[in-house]
């Protein structure tokens, strides 16, 4: 059972809009590392079978299990934004955080062997670059509340207004 997210914003993907192009991964890795390398992307696309595609990044869980799991207290969660910060001096790449994450949103940097995670591009004025670049507007910076609202509105439009 996946851990629930709560009040914080995260990058969500609408699988009905995602076409699996992987452009989010190129842009993310370039933004974070200065190189295009999907192994270094903090958001990952998933293509399963012929039509299932989506992208996954950190869900900024409340009381994040990755933070709790870290035996060296390298992970901390910003109380305001929910963003997980990883202290490179403390992290030793043990991967407990990866095991704790139900979303597969944490990865180990193949060069430094330390954990890496999405920080919602908090240092950039125009926000998450994956959202900015997504050609199909499948990615959105959102909260669970906003997602629920959107679902309700969509339901009403499709089921009530349209027919």
């Amino acid at each position, binding site marked *: 059972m996946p851990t629930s997210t709560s009040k914080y914003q995260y990058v969500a993907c609408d699988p009905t809009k995602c*076409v699996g192009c992987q*452009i989010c991964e190129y842009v993310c890795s*370039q933004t974070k590392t200065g190189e*295009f*390398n*999907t192994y270094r992307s903090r958001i990952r696309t998933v293509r399963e079978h*012929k039509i299932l595609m989506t992208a996954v990044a950190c869900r900024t869980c409340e009381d994040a299990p990755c933070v709790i799991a870290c035996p060296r207290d390298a992970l901390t969660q910003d109380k305001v934004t929910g963003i997980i910060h990883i202290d490179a001096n403390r992290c030793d790449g043990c991967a407990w955080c990866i095991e704790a994450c139900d979303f597969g949103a944490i990865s180990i940097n*193949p060069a430094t062997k330390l954990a890496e995670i999405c920080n919602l591009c908090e240092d950039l004025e125009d926000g998450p670059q994956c959202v900015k670049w997504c050609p199909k507007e499948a990615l959105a910076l959102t909260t669970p509340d906003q997602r629920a609202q959107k679902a309700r509105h969509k339901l009403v439009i499709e089921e009530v207004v349209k027919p």
Partner: protein
Amino acid sequence: MHGYSGKILHIDLTARKTWVETKPEEWYKMYIGGVAMASRLAWENIESGCDPLSPGNVICIAGGLFAGTPVPVGGKYGMASKSPLTGFIGDSLSGSWLAVTLKRSEWDGIVIHGTSEDWVRVFVDDDRVTFHDASNLVGLNTYETEDAIRDEYGDDQIRTACIGPAGENLSRIANVSNDGRKAGRTGQGAVWGSKKLKALSIRGTKGVSVADPDALLQLSYDILQAAQGPHTQKYRILGTSSNVLNMNRLGLLPTRNYQQGTFEDAELVSGEYLHENYKAKTTACAQCPIACEQIGHVKEGPFAPAMGHIEYESLFALSSNCGVSDMEASIKAIVNCNDLGLDTMSTGVTISWAMESYEKGVFTKEDFKCEKYPEGFEARFGNGEAMVALTEMIAHRDGYMGDLLAEGTKRASARVDEERGTETYKWAMNIKGLELPGYDARALKTFSVGLAAGTRGGCHNRSAAYDPDIKGDVDRFTIDDTRGELAKSTEEYAAVYDTLPLCKFIRRCFTGKADRAGAWPAIAQLINAVTGWDFDYDAVDLIGERAHTIKKAFNIREGWTRADDYLPWRWHHEPMKEGASAGHVVTEEELEYLKDLYYEAKGWTKEGFIPKEKLIELGMDDVAEEIGV
């Protein structure tokens, strides 16, 4: 050097050894990537004059300059070898994550030599190459093969190119498959099969750096935004299969093996009908912001379950062209081809040749005996079940007919005509052995010479000469002395895209105009942002001419003569009776005149050979020495 590692990986399947070849920057400036680099590698490495299915042939894979970056539609690679279907250059292109992993493994290209004794798969893990027994993969379809390899390594970023049963069985119309996309046409799947190479997998973990990332990002972002607008609307919403009704209106939709240019049930096999009734999802190739693949899904009935992307060229070949008006049969036949590793176009046009031969009494029901239908079946036009059955028979060389059709139309008709004293060559719809695309060139006269002279045979991807015909820039029903230049300029235009490579569907998104003036300056900026070179309009334009020239040179060395630039008999002698293109043929005199014009425009001799000076002018001195006149 940015954008390239400077290294080509050579793999010898006979000796199971590898070596590294380094190339100078000048070489990359000449051949860039995609089909030009792949064809150049074929030129350098093939045993000239070899049987395409012998160890002397080579499989040459060339990366894309923009692969692994956010440059829209740049996730493509080229693959070349001597075609077992045409005997000339076989150059394919595929949108694929294989191109991206190839780039990240820091190989600019891979050349595969020799032949393995037993079925083998090769794994390129960054700079390590390992050979693995592939007997467990033999018989698996293309999707199953890719999944099996990914599961074995447990890494979803490993990408694989492979063949299905069709390639294993040396069908000359087999292709190579990767992530559901195909390196199609010209039967390169059979080359893999002849080398007992089931799959090539690549893992690339290194980052891609470019000369000017800020500029590249800005350019890419603008193109990506433009690609969501009206310039790509056709592709995004209905995909290429929207062409069915367009071609039908123009009287150009090949129907019943090119006997007609209109199909009475075109509505039922249209992109619109697919969209309304069978569309499950729209998907994209690697790093493509357009996303034109329309996934069709048959959920119930005799052809269920079947799911796959439905493109115009696959659809015409396996619907109207076989007289079939059942979309579900068409989807099933296309999915079969993709699963089994068959080229949909060649398969459809070969089946339609068999259907016409059946209707004309050349074949009987018994000729179609196979495992599933021991009594054979009535292979009439319109029989969707027969069409679907034949796709499976071809892939497995099942029965007399499966074995015959696996050879493609040219060889199949020659064999039957010899055995039975018939004249089925008159409706064997190929050029140089390659089955034709979904445009009837009897009423597209500029395109007729583009197809006839095509280096890989009758191909709409390599010659874009239908464009001035269909747009109405010229009168498509008549000829005049401008057509040679038009055929040259449109094929070299296409060759620029095929070499970078970029998908041509992006062509209007640079500036709104798809012509050279609209696209070349923007493409030059992209090239320079990746490489740090100083390409301009003229340098971009030269990419196309060089790309085409190296392929032509390859063909000349393999024995090409002017007589090889032909059109099928039917297009010379049988006008269509109905529709907007009725009453037209390309006479033999017209074609010869068009060829004269075209060779002259190319700067070649009257016999179609390339003067030494022309090759030297293009910087291809070593080629001049071998085949220049």
